[in-house]
């Protein structure tokens, strides 16, 4: 092969490689984006059923409930305007508490119940994940509006 041909071959290979990588990344990204929804958006029907997503809000006081003799747990997540029931079969994080913010990852069922595969809470007394912070702030703003 002459130097020129080889250079063309190299460039062609590089273009193909970059193209393949870009395609791979796009496909992988598109199929693995998890959107974040609030209970209000879920009630309004904005959240697609059956897709992996995250929801967030405050764990409603007194809603945490577990049947005797079972690991499965159920609680209500609220943003004060709407509520979503979350079911989870597993161990809740150490800092999960009623009246505190949480984010759950999982899938929404047709009946409007959210089946969580993973539940997150804040993991430090001082630190709150941004999604939870935003949601909690929205909740407080809503409360203040009501009070006025």
């Amino acid at each position, binding site marked *: 092969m002459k130097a020129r041909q080889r250079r063309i071959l190299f460039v062609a290979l590089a273009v193909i*490689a970059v193209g393949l990588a870009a395609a791979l990344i796009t496909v992988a990204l598109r*199929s693995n984006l*998890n959107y974040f929804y609030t209970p209000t958006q879920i009630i309004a029907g904005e959240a697609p059923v059956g897709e992996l997503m995250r929801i967030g809000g405050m764990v409603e006081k007194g809603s945490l409930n577990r049947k005797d003799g*079972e690991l499965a747990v159920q609680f209500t997540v609220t943003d004060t305007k709407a509520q979503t029931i979350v079911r989870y079969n597993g161990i809740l994080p150490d800092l999960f508490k009623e009246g505190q913010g949480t*984010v759950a990852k999982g899938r929404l069922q047709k009946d409007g119940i959210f089946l969580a595969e993973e539940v997150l809470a804040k993991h430090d007394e001082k630190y709150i994940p941004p999604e939870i912070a935003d949601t909690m702030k929205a909740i407080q703003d809503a409360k203040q509006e009501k009070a006025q």
Partner: protein
Amino acid sequence: MIPEIGHFSLILAFVMALILGVLPMYGAARNNANYMALAKPAVVAQWIFVAISFACLVYAFVTNDFSVKYVVLTSNSALPLVYKVSAVWGAHEGSLLLWVLILSTWALAIAMFSRSIPAVMLSRILSVMGLIAVGFLLFVLMTSNPFDRIPMQADGRDLNPLLQDFGLAIHPPMLYMGYVGFSVAFAFAVAAMISGKLDAAWARWSRPWTNIAWVFLTIGIALGSWWAYYELGWGGWWFWDPVENASLLPWLVGTALMHSLIVTEKRGMFKAWTILLAISAFSLSLLGTFLVRSGVLTSVHAFASDPERGLFILIFLILVVGSSLTLFSMRAAKLSSTAKFETLSKETALLSNNIILVVMTAAVLLGTLFPLISDALAIGKISVGPPYFNMIMVPLAVVLVIVMGFGFVLRWKSDRWSRLQGKLWLPLIFALVAATILPLIYAPSFDGLSFMGLLMAAWVAFTALMWVLRLKRSPFKMSGTTWGAMLAHIGLAITFTGITLVSIYNVEEDIRVEKGTSYKVNEYLFTFEGVTEVEGPNYTAYQGKVKITENGKLVTVLQPEKRIYRVQTMPMTEAGIDAGIFRDLFVALGEPLGDKGAWSLRIQYKPFIRWIWLGAIFMGIGGLFAAFDRRYRRLNRRKRKSTVTTMKGVQT
């Protein structure tokens, strides 16, 4: 008084850094030997002042000086001494001071061990290190002074319980050594661009430094993964968490840089590319710092954070990237090389290595920053799940590993297929046999993916091994670089084996247990024997007892704990782990269920998980072997001798 000395010392260090950053650089431009000669004393002085400052902070922690705000926020009089010291870098202010200390130490090391580097080059390198120090010292002094005073408090608010752990005491310093170590490669690159001279000697000077930085980063990442595994409580070893990614990014680019430096040294090629990689490695280290410190991303590492500080680092990052890329665009034309190589050659293999590693970096970077971008553009709050990263990294790693085997045996410039075939069929057969037989011995079932993973790992290990054997040299006469390359690549094979097997054969169950409940995982029977309350130095704990038997024979009794730390009143899960070379048994207490003494319990069987970190240790040792290759030192000595003789010649 002591904290004031620390603060004052830090200001003096800033002044020194300023002198270091400006005068030697100016001296090098004007060829003024007096100004250039300032570089070394300024480096030493800067190090001494930073060290004094750091020592003062340690002193404040050890003596429980609760008039210092930072001590109050991160320490407590009941904290064990080890953690009082590690609490120094347990939060933002102190960890930045540690960062500066490490930066100064790297600069000191260059000043001490680079006698072979010409004065002009050396003063430029040290000057760049000085400029970086100026940025960080300014950052500490302006936004994050750890010596700020408040009225005396009775006691401190204690260190976050998650950080009260030996692994985490040494994880940040290691990681920082790596992060900051790439500032050396960066400084070398900038100095080369300014002088416009980038030759084999330059590559030889920067190679050992890059290797050492890479070793620290490798060990730092492995320590972080190990810590997350046993301390974060739930037995995962990698989460594709933004901050984990932030440490992986410079590692990937750093690995590419190490390999492209080989080509730059041996063949005088890939020069511009090497410079770009050096810039990227350090910039990504800065980006990592920004992500950790700003708290813009949801992460297990994002402890209390402050957006204003993030902004400062962001501006610094933009300055560093902007100025170095501007310099690069001005000098890139000078960095071209005339050497040629055939399609089938070691150059091509190393080029592929670089391309794949850079694509990996880009993919991880995109996945990490995508939530930020989409939030900023108001597309919505999005997170990118771990499957994204796996989908991209796994196929790319497979290609990388295949090329790796070829890389060992390929010759520089050009090679022939027939010669390669002769060298590679044996390792291929060995790898095929190993990948077929191994799963039959230990795995519960045959699995296509595990076969693939093992084949890849064995391919790397055997090509590396056969490559060394075929050199037919006595192991004592073999160069450090050869030893290093072999060990590091075998280490990679070990890590790949661990990742493959633990990903495929891992068993994880959340179950509800009462006293006496048994649960079987593979051949192991886990029996829960109830919970008792125990008292620790600064916490109270529920301690579970889980007996594990295999065919009626006792294997071990694990005691997982649920701790409540008194000061921060924060619950913490302390897992019970029975570690082994071929498998870990892992038990973690969840929460009490109802009032009949029932608990939720997580049981895990983790085959070969230790191999992930064992491989990292091999990689680290390999990197050290390569960094301390006699070749680099011999060259230095010879050069020194020749300068001495010419000097003598001049005198007579």
